[in-house]
Every structure is written in C-alpha cells, then in structure tokens.
C-alpha cells in the first residue's frame, strides 16, 4: 500500500515529527511504500541543517535524512510555509527539497492513505 505523510509541527517542541517518523519506519518495514512526506505549517522547521540537539537525545532531522537515504523517501517542504518561518534553500539539510503545496494534494491523490501528524 502507498502512504502519504503530512507533518504539521517542527522538531522537538512537539512529538508529531517523531510519531510520523516511527509510523513511516514501521510502514516501510512492513513492505509498504511511502509516496511522500510533506512538511507544512511549522513542520517545515524539520528541514533545517543547523539543528544540533544534545548528544543524549534523538536527532529528529537526522532520522528523516537517514530514512530518505535508505529508502529514497521523498521529503518535501512547503515553499510558502517555509518563507514565513525562515526555511529557504540555504537552510535545507540534505535529503529535503522545497516545493509547492500542490505536492501535498498530489500525495493525497496518489497515496492510498494520507496520514497527518500535528499538535
């Protein structure tokens, strides 16, 4: 089955991004496909390359990057939501790309299920 995932909140402040990551990992392990992960609202903040969490905690951004590397998951950041919040091309960690909100609607159309994680 093809899953689309929408992440509404940034890293650390809310568990949304962690839960989305755990869901995506579990879906892939079960042989499902992740059509796309779309980052909207404060979710765009998950794409920053400058995050350096304490070494004894999980690294939310690196978790997504590794998932993208290992499974070619498409990680898309909303351009308009990013501009509001200061996430632009130069802030992006490897593995993320910036595009339009249409990519979320497309994920809704192309995926069998769209699952949202937020506050």
């Amino acid at each position, binding site marked *: *089955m093809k*899953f689309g995932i929408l992440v*509404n909140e940034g890293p650390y402040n809310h*568990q*949304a991004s962690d*839960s989305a990551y*755990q*869901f995506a*990992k*579990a*879906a892939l*392990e*079960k042989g*499902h496909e992740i059509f796309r992960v779309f980052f909207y609202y404060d979710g765009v903040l998950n794409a920053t390359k400058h995050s350096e969490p304490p070494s004894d905690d999980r690294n939310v951004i690196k978790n997504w990057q590794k998932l993208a590397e290992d499974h070619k998951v498409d990680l898309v950041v909303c351009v308009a939501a990013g501009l509001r919040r200061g996430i632009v091309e130069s802030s992006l960690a490897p593995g993320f790309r910036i595009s339009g909100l249409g990519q979320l609607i497309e994920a809704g159309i192309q995926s*069998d*299920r*769209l*699952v*949202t*994680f*937020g*506050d």
Partner: protein
Amino acid sequence: MSILHTVNKSPFERSNLNSCLSHVTAGDSVLLMEDAVVAAMTGTAYADRIADAAKQVKLCVLGADLRARGLDPAKVVDGVAVVDYAGFVDLAAANNAVQAWL
C-alpha cells in the same frame, strides 16, 4: 467505508477526544497516541467514557507512548487494545481514510 481516527492530546487538557468520539460511526477505529494515551488508563475521571466508547468502536492505544509516560499497558480500560507502530500502520491500511483530531 470506515475511518481511523487518531487523537494525540490528553482529554484533561483538550476537547479533541470528546469531539472525535462524537463523530465516530459504526465500524470506525480510534487510536490514542502521544499525550492522549493517558485517557486509556483505568482509575481516571475519564475511564467510564472510554469504556463506553470501546463498546461502539475499535479503541486502540500506542504501547510505546504508554511506556514512555510510565503507564502500565496491563492496566488499560477493558476493551482497549494496545498496539505498536506496526499495528498503527495496519489500522491505517484497514480503514478507508485516516482523520487526525488535532
């Protein structure tokens, strides 16, 4: 047609869970996750509401979120099923759509 409803906030803090439970229909499933897992426990002021809901819909709770908060999965309200992330994926696949009550 059926929906998997996800709820991630404590019913003591927010009205999400109440709102969700007043919009479920027969055959739907509800997953309590993140801070909403506190609602699944016996002994709380909310436990009767959950026990009632578990008779109407398939009610599940994420075990990982229970254990993180020091809540014992063996002490959830009767009729509530404890699932892992793989179980969450199965629930999403088994229903026609997923609605997050944010």
